[in-house]
């Protein structure tokens, strides 16, 4: 069964036809060619496919594309202008919070949602806040540090 869906992706309005069973992550990667959103586990455990749907971080591997009709989606490609960094991207670079980079977009998208609701987190809260995102390379120490740095920088920005 085909459905026409209209949604905003990284600020741009689009209308596409999708199958009932098309997963949102495939829609983003294959139909929209935004390959920064990754697939790591298929069972909503690893978080490599995390995106923002109407501002909330969700796992796009466990969401039907057709259900995103009428929503606003932000992916890693949409959080900063080309050549510039979102404070979280900058902090990940500063703190060496990525190695292979495969989990990185998902963790950054999750962190945006997390800091939105907890702008001044403790280390413990950060660790629980990203507990749905697996990283196999970094051992998480520097990811925690990066999110802390971003929190501080984002607070100063809004003051």
């Amino acid at each position, binding site marked *: 069964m085909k459905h026409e869906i209209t949604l905003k992706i990284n600020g741009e309005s689009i209308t596409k036809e999708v*199958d009932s069973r098309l997963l949102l992550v*495939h829609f983003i990667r294959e139909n929209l060619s935004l390959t*920064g959103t990754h*697939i*790591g586990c298929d069972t909503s455990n690893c978080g490599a496919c995390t995106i923002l749907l109407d501002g909330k971080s969700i796992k796009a591997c466990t969401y039907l594309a057709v259900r995103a009709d009428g929503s606003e989606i932000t992916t890693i490609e949409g959080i900063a202008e080309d050549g510039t*960094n979102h404070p979280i991207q900058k902090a990940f670079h500063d703190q060496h919070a990525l190695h292979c980079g495969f989990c990185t977009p998902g963790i950054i998208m999750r962190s945006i949602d997390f800091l939105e609701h907890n702008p001044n987190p403790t280390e413990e809260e950060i660790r629980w806040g990203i*507990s749905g995102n697996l990283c196999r390379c970094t051992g998480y120490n520097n990811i925690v540090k990066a999110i802390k740095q971003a929190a501080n920088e984002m607070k100063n920005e809004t003051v």
Partner: protein
Amino acid sequence: MFKCKTSPEVGGMGHSVKRKEDARFLHGKGNYVDDVKLPGMLSMVMVRSPYAYAKIKNINKEKALKIDGVLAVITGNDLAQYNLHWMPTLLSDTQMVLPTDTVMHQSQEVCAVIATDRYTAVDGAEAVEIDYEPMQAVVDPFKALDEDAPLLRPDKEGQKDNQIYHWEQGDRDKTDQVISNADIVVKERIYLPRIHVASIETCGCVASYDKDTKKLTVYLTTQAPHAIRTVLALVAGHVGLSEEKIRVIAPDIGGGFGGKVPVHPSYVVAIAASFLIGKPVKWIEDRSENLVNGFARDYHMDCELAANKDGKIQAFKVKTLADHGYTDASANPSKYPTGMFSICTGSYDYEHAFAELDAVYTNKVPGGVAYRCSFRVTEAAHAIERMVDKLALKIGKDPAQLRMENFIKKDQFPYSSPLGWNYDSGDYHATLKKAMEMVGYDDYKLEQAKKRKEGKLMGIGICTFTEVVGAGPSKDFDILGIAMFDSADITVHPTGKAMARFGTKSQGQGHETTYAQILAEELGISYNDIEIEEGDTDTAPYGLGTYASRSTPTAGAAAAIAARKLRDKGKKIAAHLLEVSEEDIEWEVGKYFVKGAPEKSKTIQDVAFAAYTNIPPGMEPGFEATHYYDPPNLTFPNGAYICVVEVEEATGAIDVKRFVAIDDCGNIINPMIVEGQVHGGLTQGIAPAMYEGIEYDDEGNVLNGTLMDYLVPTSVESPHWETGHTITPSPHHPLGAKGVAESPTVGAPPAIANAIIDALSPLGIEHLDIPITPAKVWDAIQAHK
């Protein structure tokens, strides 16, 4: 400590410069295999066996082929027409590409469905009808050698039982004699279970064969692109795939850890499919396929450690049974079927040791590859470090003290180990002392004594491991006969900026930064002005790839030496420019100057420009150098790790309170990156120590083939790691460096196991196999009540 020779702007060794490769990953512009899209590309999905051991009676493709968009179903019989249904393994065994009559493990590839897109291919795979006749699988490796066990590999000529090989090293008789005369002998059977690297990116490929140019391009999740190209040429040469017509491209890799070393059967099928159909074919593993294919560890080790009554170690003996699955697909150097397992004598000074191993076939997936440690060093370190703790417990000596009394001393290096390794350097006493100070060892000992009086379970665990990385010297180390050198190829452009290519392949280690720093150190060109490329066999120099912490020891050394060749050429050019003789030219980072007249100088950039514009008479133009580095020895990084835990008796819950890791990996190129590698390796150490293990039932079914049940640690399980260093340069490496990335994966599990077992020791518990879960602890506590 290491003193930087270059300014932060040049960014040579010792500077924590930020990574050059980060930008593309941070912005979603990494290019991983699944991101590759080619015109007309088809999708391949494998149909896999539900049984561990079964005859294939019939494969019915009809229903699948009726689905709109399904183009082909490829079976073993289809491949047999081209003699492509079997392939050799790295250790001279044979592995099915696709079976013609028998499946040997659950989830084995049975046939492949090729369709216009992924969704259709999955539907096609569901529609293929296969009749199996299940047989009684051999699951327990100890039963594989029973007389009545079925012969699993009748296809192999002369194979009369399920033993693959016997290996041994050392003096059995002398070791037995020392053990039988010793004051103290401690014994234990230690099992390191099957685990899986579970890199967040699974494996995959895009194979693209052009029928007109006869050129095959394969985008592949591989840690060793050149070796793979050679293997493909050997496997498929007879059908016309010749090595110069094969281009292997390893794009960005989402974590490797050894899981992306082997040639997966599906790669070969995808290539065959593209070859037959003439269109690009993409295959991407899903997570379950990933987890139930390939493995690391699976060693059952019977250990004996002998000492005098004071705890002076006298001999070590280990007899191992290795479960290799249905074929020996281990990724080891040819002459080392058990990898570097003979490093099992550890960091201690004693004379006698004997190690033997029997490898057997079972109805399990083959593998025997790495889990952030390729060559069986983790198994070896676990064996000796557990046994040393057991000895300490037995004679009532502090495990730190026991280690201090047995360590190889600083002035004994280079040290010949009982099983034949030549340890290059180390200062084990200093490293352990630093770890003890950092964690506050003495205070914890007091706290532990107090807690024990209160009936609380607290443990302190130590591991002082010696690693062996950087394979390796060509006289001993080869894969399929190819010596295990590695390579660097530098071009300095006329404007003084550079490009360098390597035979290795980063999977997150940060090569684009560290290699640039090595060249910055040697040439004085800023690391920012040097581009690094790897992974494309059409452009990179031949190398054996990145695994087993070998990139810095081999390709890193190649970079330094190639740079020094350039510097030698540059000296001649500088002499020409400064109109003095070559002997009068001296070098300091970034420039040549005239001896005694330092104001008369030429920068490396001046010299590079002259190499293209103002060449000394008779000299070959250009400013390029290549080096293939054949290391004279391996490097022996080492470390002292200390873990503090508390265990709750009622529930078995384990709380890791502290973990301190002091590593000695020689001179450090980028401290930030090294620390990051250690953090990551430690989390991949706590993972098998407390969470991960592939579980099989009696029929050979994998019980935890998703990330719901294969428990990769999250940020919550992963402790806040504390790290530090001692620096004992490698005497033979041009930069004094050693490898590091796998050290923490080797060192962490014994430290954690020792800590938990130390906590439980007042209850009479002397050993537990990893993963040590609360459930296992609880069961052990009940058994000792």
